[in-house]
């Protein structure tokens, strides 16, 4: 029992931390709640990215593509038929159905996972940099297809009329689920083997690790979680645009993971919280922030936030390449049970 508690400790701390942040936002004004909801959606996306990147050591640029797939699949399944008919030219069976939100969300996640499986079959054979470039190609493919398949996605036009149901607590629920999934996965035998291949590919292979298979498993789970993040995003904003799911979002999600620490789930969670807080602060600075006790308004030029974020990432890489948290939070109370002989 003690061992189990000790093993689950990082998970419990992270869940409590996220719950505390959510509660804090819940007590705040409506604008803050909305920002926090977006932050929790980013958390799902970052944890999804971490499942693959953290365990395999291969950087993926493709996960925002999975977000796009999840968002559009859920949109097509849950929008009112009348709204779909107004913007799109869908085949009748797709045009007429309207699924409940949760079914649409799961379908979105599964569609993204399916894309991860199919694309991963060739892509997961590539290691290191080649693998990263391969996932980049995947991102471009998804973007081009969604941006031009006008009959189904609306193409370059925004797709409007998604039911808006994502709120703070739904986002928190999925964030908690994604953290649990990521944690359970990383405690598994498969993830351990994958991390071995991250440390030394040749040695892992020689020890009987089937790298291709383990990478593929991580990629599919990662794809599912990213898809869910996309679903939540779409149903928060109510409109979808192909270019919302491209390099800017990719950069944000990767920055959150890298600054937090791409080697641990703790890093993924902390990075998201810290970056969300900092970008929110910069956003208010761009809007103009009156200083208390002084007749002065601080204001920054628009777009400064992105440049600062990029600079912060460069500095982190230079001075603390493992990010804020390089490893999971350790059990702080010493040994619970005597070590077995």
């Amino acid at each position: 029992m003690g061992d189990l508690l000790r093993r689950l400790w990082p998970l419990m701390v992270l869940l409590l931390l996220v719950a505390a942040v959510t509660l804090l936002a819940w007590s705040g004004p409506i604008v803050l709640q909305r920002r926090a909801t977006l932050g929790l959606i980013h958390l799902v996306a970052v944890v999804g990215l971490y499942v693959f990147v953290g365990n395999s050591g291969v950087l993926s640029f493709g996960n925002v593509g999975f977000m796009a797939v999840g968002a559009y699949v859920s949109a097509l399944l849950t929008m009112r038929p009348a709204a779909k008919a107004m913007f799109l030219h869908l085949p009748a069976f797709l045009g007429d159905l309207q699924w409940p939100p949760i079914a649409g969300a799961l379908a979105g996640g599964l569609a993204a996972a399916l894309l991860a499986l199919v694309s991963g079959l060739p892509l997961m054979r590539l290691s290191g940099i080649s693998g990263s470039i391969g996932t980049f190609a995947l991102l471009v493919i998804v973007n081009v297809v969604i941006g031009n398949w006008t009959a189904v996605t609306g193409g370059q036009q925004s797709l409007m009329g998604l039911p808006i149901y994502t709120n703070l607590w739904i986002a928190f629920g999925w964030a908690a689920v994604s953290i649990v999934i990521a944690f359970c996965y990383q405690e598994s035998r498969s993830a351990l083997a994958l991390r071995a291949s991250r440390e030394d590919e040749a040695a892992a292979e020689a020890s009987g690790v089937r790298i291709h298979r383990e990478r593929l498993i991580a990629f599919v789970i990662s794809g599912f979680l990213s898809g869910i993040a996309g679903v939540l995003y779409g149903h928060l904003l109510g409109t979808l645009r192909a270019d919302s799911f491209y390099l800017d979002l990719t950069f944000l999600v990767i920055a959150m993971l890298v600054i937090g620490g791409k080697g641990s789930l703790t890093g993924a969670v902390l990075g998201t919280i810290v970056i969300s807080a900092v970008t929110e602060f910069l956003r208010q600075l761009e809007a103009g922030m009156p200083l208390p006790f002084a007749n002065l308004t601080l204001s920054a030029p628009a777009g400064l936030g992105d440049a600062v974020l990029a600079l912060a990432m460069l500095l982190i890489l230079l001075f603390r390449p493992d990010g804020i948290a390089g490893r999971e939070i350790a059990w702080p109370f010493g040994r619970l049970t005597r070590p077995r002989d």
Partner: protein
Amino acid sequence: MIDTIVQILVDAVSLGGLYALTALGIGLIFGVMRLINFAHGDLITAAGYLVFLLAGQSVAVAILGALTVAIVLAVVTERVAFRPLRRADPATLLISSFALSVFLQKTLILFVSSRPKGVDFLPELQQQVTILQVHVQLLEIVTIAVTGVTLVGLSLFLKHTRFGLEMRAAAENFRVARLLGVRADRVIAQAFAISGALAAIVAILFTAQTGIVQPRMGLPLVVVAFVSTVIGGLGNLTGAALGGFLVGAISVLLQSLLPEDLRVFREALVFVAVIIVLLLRPQGLLPARGLRERI
């Protein structure tokens, strides 16, 4: 019939040439540093904006300005962002170049706004010429010629000068090259300077073709160049150039062979083709020597 074929050929070689030059710029850096330089696209963008600023002056001034800015920016970014990370693993380098690229792009947007701007650079090259009873744009011929001269010049440089020899040695095995007296800082700075020059050449040709500069103009080129270097075999310069031409050829072929309503998906199909090539040859068409660690 014959003129269609020649037209396709000219298109393929001129587009492929731009891709090949960009891929070479990325491949050179990868060779000496194992770094995929995302920021190469921003070198192209910066040079493009210099062309935009100086287009009113004489052509030579604009070209010189573009070359200077791209080379200086390349060398400075190496010194500031990449040199401290030289011992980091390739994934960290990749992320830092991504961050650098975003930083350069967003900083540029702060100054010039994100709106595209029209440039009228070398308008006299827009005219059609007739070769063997086939009409082609003069600019395409110039692009092909410049690409050819650059490729030949670069390969002469790499094969027949001391600096080139050092760069090839460093690409094959950096540690041994250093032991034999190759100065690491200098050879890497050189590689960056040359990649800056290549970026400027691409920017000049590309700006003349499109007549537009905007803060993201380098991005589509580097994206294609990335996959070109991977198809060609990361770390192999001949492979990078070959990959660039190959992707250019596939693009142009799809553009002319696909039915009208599928043409918008051309780029996606190009990348599907890339993934298929990688499925068949994960190490690329011409695998580089010395890249796989010996155990």
